[in-house]
C-alpha cells in the first residue's frame, strides 16, 4: 500500500536568529496521489523546496499539519517519530553530491539503511541493489566517493537515498547542472524505479521538457501557494495562464501552437512529445 501525503492548511516560516521569513508556504492544502510522478514547478523563491522539506519534517509547519500514512507532523512531533517518517520518505537535495562523506561509495550508500536500523549484511545488499538501480557498476563500491566524476557522484548520492527503500521519494532539482542527455538518463532511471516498485515520486524542476515527458501530475507554485495541482496535459492547454505563471512550453507543444496558427489546422489533442506530435500530424493527414 503506497503512502499518502496530505497537507492541510500548512503555513511555514523560516527563522534565522532575529530574522523571520514569513509565510514561505501560505495555507497550502493538497493530497499527493500515491504511486504517481508529480512535478513541482514555479518561479524561483516560490516555495518549491520548502514544500518538499515540509513533506519529510525538515521544515515544521507553524500552522496546519501534514499527514503521512497514519502519522502526523505538526509543531509537536518528536525527533524519533520524524525519524520513522523519514524512513519512508526519501529526500534528494539539490546538488546531493555535496553530502557524500564516507571512505567508500558502499559505506556512503549504506549510511541511510544503517541509520534506519537494518543490519550490516542487509545494508550492503541494499547498497548493491541501489547502485544497480542508478545504473552504476558494482566495481565502484570500494572507491572513494570523492574520486568520482560529477555525474557519478550525483548518482551515488541518489542511490544513498534509494537504498533505504522509501515509499515516497522527494527530489529537489535532481537534474540541475546536468547536460540534456544526462538529464534524460537520470529521469529515465527514476521512472524505471517508479514503474518497477510502484512508488511515489515528487520532483522539483525548472525544465518543462522533463515535466512534459516524465511527470503525470503537476503542482504549480506561486508566492508560497499552490495555484495548480492536476494532470500534466491540461496545464499545457491554457497558454495564457502559463505565461502568467512564467512557465515555458515544451518544444513539441510550442511547435504545435505555431503550426496551428500558421496552417489554420487544429490538431485533435495537446501534444507534449515529438512522438505525440508526429502521430497527431499523421492523424489529420498533413504528413
Amino acid at each position, binding site marked *: 500500500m503506497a503512502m499518502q501525503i496530505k497537507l492541510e492548511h500548512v503555513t511555514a516560516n523560516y*527563522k*534565522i*536568529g*532575529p530574522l523571520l521569513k514569513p509565510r514561505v508556504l501560505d495555507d497550502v492544502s493538497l493530497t499527493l496521489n500515491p504511486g504517481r510522478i508529480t512535478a513541482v514547478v514555479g518561479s524561483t523563491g516560490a516555495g518549491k523546496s520548502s514544500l518538499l*522539506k515540509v513533506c*519529510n519534517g*525538515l521544515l515544521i509547519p507553524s500552522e496546519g499539519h501534514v499527514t503521512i500514512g497514519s502519522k502526523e507532523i505538526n509543531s509537536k512531533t518528536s*525527533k524519533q517519530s520524524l*525519524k520513522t517518517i*523519514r*524512513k519512508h520518505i*526519501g*529526500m534528494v*537535495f539539490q546538488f*546531493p553530491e*555535496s*553530502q*557524500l*562523506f*564516507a571512505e567508500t561509495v558502499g559505506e556512503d550508500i549504506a*549510511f*541511510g539503511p544503517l*541509520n*534506519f536500523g537494518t543490519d550490516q549484511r542487509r545494508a550492503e545488499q541494499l547498497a548493491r541493489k541501489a547502485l544497480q538501480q542508478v545504473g552504476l557498476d558494482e566495481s565502484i563500491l570500494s572507491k572513494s566517493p*570523492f574520486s568520482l566524476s560529477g555525474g557519478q557522484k550525483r548518482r551515488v548520492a541518489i542511490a*544513498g*537515498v534509494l537504498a*533505504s527503500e522509501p515509499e515516497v521519494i522527494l527530489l529537489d532539482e535532481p537534474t540541475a547542472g546536468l547536460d540534456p542527455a544526462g538529464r534524460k538518463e537520470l529521469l529515465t532511471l527514476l521512472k524505471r524505479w517508479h514503474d518497477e516498485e510502484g512508488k511515489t515520486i515528487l520532483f522539483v524542476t525548472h525544465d518543462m521538457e522533463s515535466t512534459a515527458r516524465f511527470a503525470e501530475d503537476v503542482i504549480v507554485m506561486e508566492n508560497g501557494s499552490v495555484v495548480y495541482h492536476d494532470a500534466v496535459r491540461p496545464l499545457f492547454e491554457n497558454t495564457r495562464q502559463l505565461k502568467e505563471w512564467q512557465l515555458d512550453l515544451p518544444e513539441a507543444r510550442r511547435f504545435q501552437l505555431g503550426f496551428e496558427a500558421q496552417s489554420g489546422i487544429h490538431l485533435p489533442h495537446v501534444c507534449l512529445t515529438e512522438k505525440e506530435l508526429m502521430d497527431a500530424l499523421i492523424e489529420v493527414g498533413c504528413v
Partner: protein
Amino acid sequence: MNRLILGRYFPGDSVIHRRDPRAKILCGAAFIFISFLAKNMEGLILLWMFAFGIMFFTKISFRTYFRGLRPLFWLILFTVCLQILFTSGGTLYWRFGPIKLSSFGIVQALFIFTRFVTIIFVTTAVTLTTKPMDLTDGLHALLRPLRLFHLPVDEWSMMLSIALRFIPNLLDETQRVMDAQSARGAVFGEGSLFQQMKALVPIFLPLFAGSLARGEELANVMDVRGYRSELPRSSFRRLKWTFGDTCCLLIMCLLIVALAAFNLNG
C-alpha cells in the same frame, strides 16, 4: 546553527551601530583590560552598569545577548565552581577534604563571573553592531603601523576578510548538509558523547571537502583577475572618524579613571 550569535551582524541604526569600527575595536579591547582593574564592589557594579548600558544602546534585545552566552555556559560554570571550591581565606563556612566554601572564594568567584560575562557582553555588542567587513577594515587601519616592522598586515587583513566573508556561506552549507543527513536518518544531539561526536563526521567531512574546493576556486579566480599580494592596496570603503567616536574613547578613559579611583579609595 541558527543560535550562534557570536560573530554575527544584526543590522540596525543605533548610536553604537554608527560608531567607527576603529573606535569600537579600541573600546572593546580596552574593556577587556579594564575588567581586570576592578578590585572591589564599586568597580564590579560599574562594570555591570557599563556592559548593560552598552547593550541597551545597541537597541538589540537582552535576550539575544543571553543566548550568546549559552555556548559558553559550561565553561563559565566550571571556572566559577573552581574558584568557589578551591579558594581559601576569609570566613570558612564549610569544608570537605580539599574542597572548601569560604567568603573569600565566593567573592573571587563573583569577580571571575563578572569579568567573563561582561567581556562577552561587550565584545558581542561590538560584533553584533559592526559589519564583518567594517571590522576587518577597522582592524587593518589599527594594525597599519606594524607595516613599519615589515609585518604583512595587508595580507592578514585580506585573509581575515575572506574568512569572514565565508562564514554565512559555511553556516548555510552546514544547515544544508545537516538537512541532507537527517533525511537519511541521522540524528544529531542524542545518545552518548561518543555517539554524538560520531554523528558529526557526516557533517564535517562534506563541509571540509566543499570548503577546500571553494578555497581553491577562489584562489584561482583571484589569480586570474590579477590579485598580487605584494602590490599596495587601496580601499573602496573609507572609514570616517567623527566627534561621537572621540566621545567613545573619552568615556572609556573616564571608566578607567573611575576604576582606578575606586581602587585607591578601597
